[in-house]
């Protein structure tokens, strides 16, 4: 009998929401904002991806058609590679506005991603970027609060709670009924968003090969967000059941929302930075420069007989070899320093992910970015791939210099080193850069912590709701 009551209890809540305008105003507005976010982001994604693909082709073509020149001059101007935007970036742009998507591959040094979109925006960017993920993470709990803050406490004030219970409906049934109503109203708002996102992803030209991968990611994202929303529903029910009045319930819920969505992320970032401090650019560069200097000297002394780089001790007809030695000596040092830097960032991010136990939005944020392919890990993978490409280019250039420029100097005189010019055949031997975004199953492995924290939060929220409804004030 009790389970049959559930739809009735849920229906009663829907009638209330429809009557007091919440369904239309709060639900409708949320839906409009999220659909607008999908539309804006799909348009941006299509434009940005079109430009990226065009630039990728243009950049490599210009490398191939650069004409004859000294290979080291070619390596100095290098090439740009561009990070492809994953299809689900239109749902969650993640760190992309703050990390950039282009890397300059040039001689001698490993570069970082450049051109962060946030740098080309005004300070308002810091208020947030309109995306479905932002709306769900930040405003999602508020939407649940608006619908649910008075489901128990309001009824208690009106005196209808006692009447309902006197009809023989158990507290637990009432809780599940109200939970069903809140889940229902959220589904009513979110299902059109899910459909719109799916259509947008298909429109934003997902290749057939990537379709199943993207579908899996979208499914997992839906599960994660569903767990988050569900956690909010039970948390709201717990507070509403426990608070004596609707007003108190609203104030407590808003306080919790502000603390977990507005305060906690900033405090968690400060704590993470305190536990694993990240270096300034100057500090990072100067430490790496010192280590590189020492490594270069060691390698030059060992391989070329003098630790004085680019001086008179090593004749010009060995500068091809010298470049090769220099490059290889730098690789390990750069790897070590970038690894340390990125590990620091990863540790900071992991701290914030675990902070989700107190502020669930942080775990959801990590989970969402990983599955959307816009997390720091994706940024790191791309940076690795770009650096591999740079080294391929460098090695091809250095090998050619050893083989041809040094030999050219032998035959044409030592000073003729820079008169050697390579042609299109050498440029064509540098492969076109291609980057394969990691598969969903890999992302799934990395999203376990975030998901586990979300599930823990959900279990605690359900427990709290059950306890609060059983120990509600009369």
């Amino acid at each position: 009998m009790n389970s049959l009551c559930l739809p009735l209890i849920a229906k009663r809540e829907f009638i209330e929401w429809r009557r007091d305008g919440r369904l239309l105003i709060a639900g409708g507005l949320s839906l409009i904002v999220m659909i607008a976010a999908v539309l804006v982001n799909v348009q941006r994604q299509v434009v940005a991806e079109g430009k990226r693909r065009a630039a990728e082709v243009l950049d490599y073509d210009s490398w191939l058609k650069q004409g004859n020149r000294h290979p080291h001059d070619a390596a100095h101007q290098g090439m740009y590679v561009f990070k492809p935007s994953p299809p689900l970036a239109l749902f969650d742009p993640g760190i992309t506005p703050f990390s950039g998507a282009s890397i300059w591959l040039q001689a001698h040094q490993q570069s970082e991603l450049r051109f962060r979109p946030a740098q080309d925006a005004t300070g308002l960017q810091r208020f947030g970027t309109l995306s479905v993920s932002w709306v769900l993470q930040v405003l999602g709990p508020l939407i649940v609060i608006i619908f649910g803050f008075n489901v128990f406490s309001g009824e208690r004030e009106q005196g209808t709670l006692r009447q309902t219970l006197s009809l023989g409906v158990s507290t637990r049934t009432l809780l599940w009924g109200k939970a069903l109503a809140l889940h229902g109203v959220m589904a009513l708002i979110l299902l059109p968003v899910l459909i719109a996102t799916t259509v947008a992803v298909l429109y934003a030209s997902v290749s057939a090969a990537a379709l199943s991968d993207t579908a899996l990611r979208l499914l997992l994202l839906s599960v994660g967000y569903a767990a988050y929303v569900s956690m909010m529903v039970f948390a709201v029910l717990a507070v509403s059941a426990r608070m004596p009045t609707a007003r108190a319930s609203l104030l407590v819920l808003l306080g919790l929302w502000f603390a977990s969505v507005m305060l906690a992320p900033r405090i968690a970032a400060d704590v993470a930075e305190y536990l694993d401090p990240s270096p300034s650019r100057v500090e990072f560069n100067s430490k790496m420069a010192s280590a590189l200097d020492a490594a270069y000297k060691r390698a030059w002394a060992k391989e070329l007989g003098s630790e004085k780089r680019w001086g008179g001790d090593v004749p010009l007809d060995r500068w091809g070899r010298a470049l090769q030695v220099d490059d290889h000596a730098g690789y390990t040092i750069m790897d070590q320093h970038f690894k340390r830097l990125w590990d620091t960032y990863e540790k900071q991010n992991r701290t914030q992910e675990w902070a989700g136990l107190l502020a669930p939005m942080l775990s959801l944020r990590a989970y969402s970015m990983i599955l959307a392919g816009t997390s720091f890990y994706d940024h790191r993978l791309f940076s690795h791939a770009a650096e591999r490409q740079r080294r391929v280019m460098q090695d091809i250039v250095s090998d050619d210099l050893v083989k041809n420029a040094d030999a050219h100097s032998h035959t044409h005189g030592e000073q003729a080193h820079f008169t050697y010019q390579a042609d299109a055949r050498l440029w064509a031997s540098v492969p076109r850069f291609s980057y394969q975004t990691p598969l969903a199953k890999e992302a799934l492995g990395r999203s376990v912590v975030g998901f586990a924290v979300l599930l823990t939060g959900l279990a605690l929220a359900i427990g709290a709701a059950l306890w609060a409804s059983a120990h509600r004030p009369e």
Partner: protein
Amino acid sequence: MPPLSTLDKLQRTLQGPGTGYLFTRVFLNEGRILLADRTLWLACGLLFLFLGYSLYVGLSQVRAREAVLQGITLRDAEKADKSITQLRRILAGHETPDPFSNPADPASVASGLGARHAVLPYLALAPLALGQSDMAPNYYRVTNRNKSTFLYDGEMDNPWNLMTGHFDTAFVVIYLLPLLILGVSYNMLSAERERGTLRLLLSHSLGIGTLLLAKTAVRALAVLTTTGATVAAVLLPERGGSLEYLFWLGMIAAYAVFWFAVAAAVNALGKASATNAFALIVVWVTLVILAPVLLNLAVSQAYPAPSRTELATRSRLITIGGLNRFADLLATDYRHVGKPQVLLPKDGKIEVAERRKAHLLIARQVDAELDTLLAAFEKQLLAQQQFIERFSLISPAAVIHEGMSALAGTGSRRYTQFTQQVSTYHMDWKAFFEVRILNGIAMTEPDFARLPKFSWLEQPATALRGQLAGYALQLLVPSLLLGLWARRRLRRYPMV
């Protein structure tokens, strides 16, 4: 002055005490009540705690960054001294220079050896609003290489942390201050009515407008005193900037007045306390959370930044063009390794490698073409900024954000001006060396003293004040309108 007639005296007695007297009485009584029921203690205590933490965060960040800037300036000076010492040793015949680090060779000094940093100083109020300072660099290492080699770099930080933002005073002011204001003022009239004390109060000659104004004033005084005193006590002794602080306090006061006006307007509607609280929360979410994001969306749609992807590729194509144009110079014999005597100056002249001349000419051409491309970015960013200054009216949070960033010197406009001034300095730097490199004029010791120095030219104080006055008006005009509307609405206020 003629004596009062009996009729006048009677009229005075019936009228009761003047508005000023009643305002003061309500103000004092309300203050006592709020202190007694701990509402003000709690609100001001929370404000004090959050402000304290935000000041700690802001000051630590700015101290660390200023230490970086000091280190940079110090290292530049040390490097210059080292180059002069080396030059002396070379001229005295005690040392043979290397091809790429020869202080007598203008090409070496113009590039890595003499490279100087252009530094943007932090202002006194920088700890209050970190703004764009965590992304936009406050320094660039300027050489004679083209500007794409240094001007595209940003500051280094964990992107997740950048996305989250800082717990700075701007955050506390923008988000928390209005919440606390609404928290202490959502029921200024409704609570009196719900307790049945409103009729009692108004049965005297006290007007409901005076009552609401006095209640608002006591809360405003408490909130603003806490904010002003906390910031002044922590910030001013270390950073100075008293005048800027007063402007900042003025902006904060205007922002607080806006939120009190919103609370007064909602109170004037005559609804229950719970309804007031709910309505005010909706207003807060709309104006503080949603409106700035929508404004940001509007500005990025109205004035989208040109594609950086295209800029990257265009920069490279321009460089390739330069390399092709000066291919002959690049492919000349290079005597500077095998014949070290060419590295030494003779009669004020030195043989600058043709390749290095080529690099200078390529950089000149690349910069000329890049300027056009970069101008498009600057133009668009300026248009975005102007758009916000015009339309931030829709969100007081955006207005105060812009105002605080401008006062702290961490807003987009100041960073754009910095890159513009760095571009000019870069041109000066190149011009200084161009004549020496192309004509093979050796560097001398006095030349090092004459190297172009970057000195940041702050925008005129009058311009900043004009900007701030605009922001203050954007806050005060809506406040005034809300206040007038509330006053009008109070005439129909339900007493029960």
